[in-house]
């Protein structure tokens, strides 16, 4: 696991949650996970392909999602599948967008795929060949989990051959 690839995601998540929810956040648990990912709530899966490859899963319970939605919207939101889905996507987009900005400005180029939301009982397929880092972040709305598996696809010296991020 290359921490220089993981750190921008952790930093971005921490900053995005604190700014969006207007309150401090805390990383309460970090662990390595070598098994297939077991979803804890509603998850957004984002794939990254290019100089570095991997995936990020943002995972939170529907109850936490509705609380986050209410803060983001500035008004009390009623629980619904659409609200939960939109919230998870919006949080994932902000975290990934900010992380990508940091990595891109360091010279990495890659494509980020739109978030895939997983809400039903079927779990997420694990990536058998990649160990992941699972981070639990405590926010005023409840716990939010990030599962990050990232690796270099090419050596950085070879990356000029890789198409630019779109």
């Amino acid at each position, binding site marked *: 696991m290359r921490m220089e690839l993981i750190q921008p995601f952790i930093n971005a998540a921490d900053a995005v949650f604190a700014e969006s929810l207007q309150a401090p956040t805390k990383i309460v648990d970090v662990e390595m996970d070598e098994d297939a990912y077991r979803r804890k709530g509603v998850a957004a899966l984002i794939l990254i392909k290019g100089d570095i490859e991997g995936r990020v899963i943002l995972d939170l319970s529907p109850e936490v999602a509705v609380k986050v939605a209410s803060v983001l919207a500035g008004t009390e939101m009623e629980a619904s599948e659409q609200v939960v889905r939109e919230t998870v996507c919006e949080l994932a987009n*902000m975290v990934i967008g900010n992380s990508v900005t940091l990595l891109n400005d360091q010279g990495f180029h890659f494509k980020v795929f739109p978030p895939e939301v997983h809400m039903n009982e079927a779990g997420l397929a694990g990536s058998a060949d990649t160990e992941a880092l699972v981070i639990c972040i405590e926010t005023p709305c409840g716990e939010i989990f990030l599962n990050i598996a990232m690796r270099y696809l090419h050596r950085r010296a070879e990356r000029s051959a890789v198409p630019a991020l779109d």
Partner: protein
Amino acid sequence: MKQFGALLRKDNQPVRYLVVDDSVFARKNLIKMIEMFGGELAGEAGDGLTAIAEYNRIKPDIVLMDITMPQMEGIESVERIVRQHADARIVMVSSVGYQENILAALQKGAKHFVQKPVKPEVLYEILRYVLSDDPNGAGAPVALAGESRS
């Protein structure tokens, strides 16, 4: 909560905004901020194509435009709007803030860029700056009433 002086047009009317983002929450958040700045929501759109139609229909003073959206992305939408309306004032609002993206948006005619999550004080200063660029005078949204205060 921080208080902001109203950003007004030169004719002392509220600045009219078109808010473009595929996320309902992002739109609500931006709408909340423009109301804090004394602005008026003229329209909303969830993708770049609708944004063009809405721009033509309502002729807003300012567009707040996301980049990554379905159907048509923000940067292409900016290009098409500016091609028809050279004086359009468009501020990009995106979580993806790397230099190539910002440069592409500015080259297509966007006036400024703000990264999500949007801080109200940052957006306020950017809007002040963009509104102060007065092309023609009468009727143009340039005048600023009041100052930001904590």
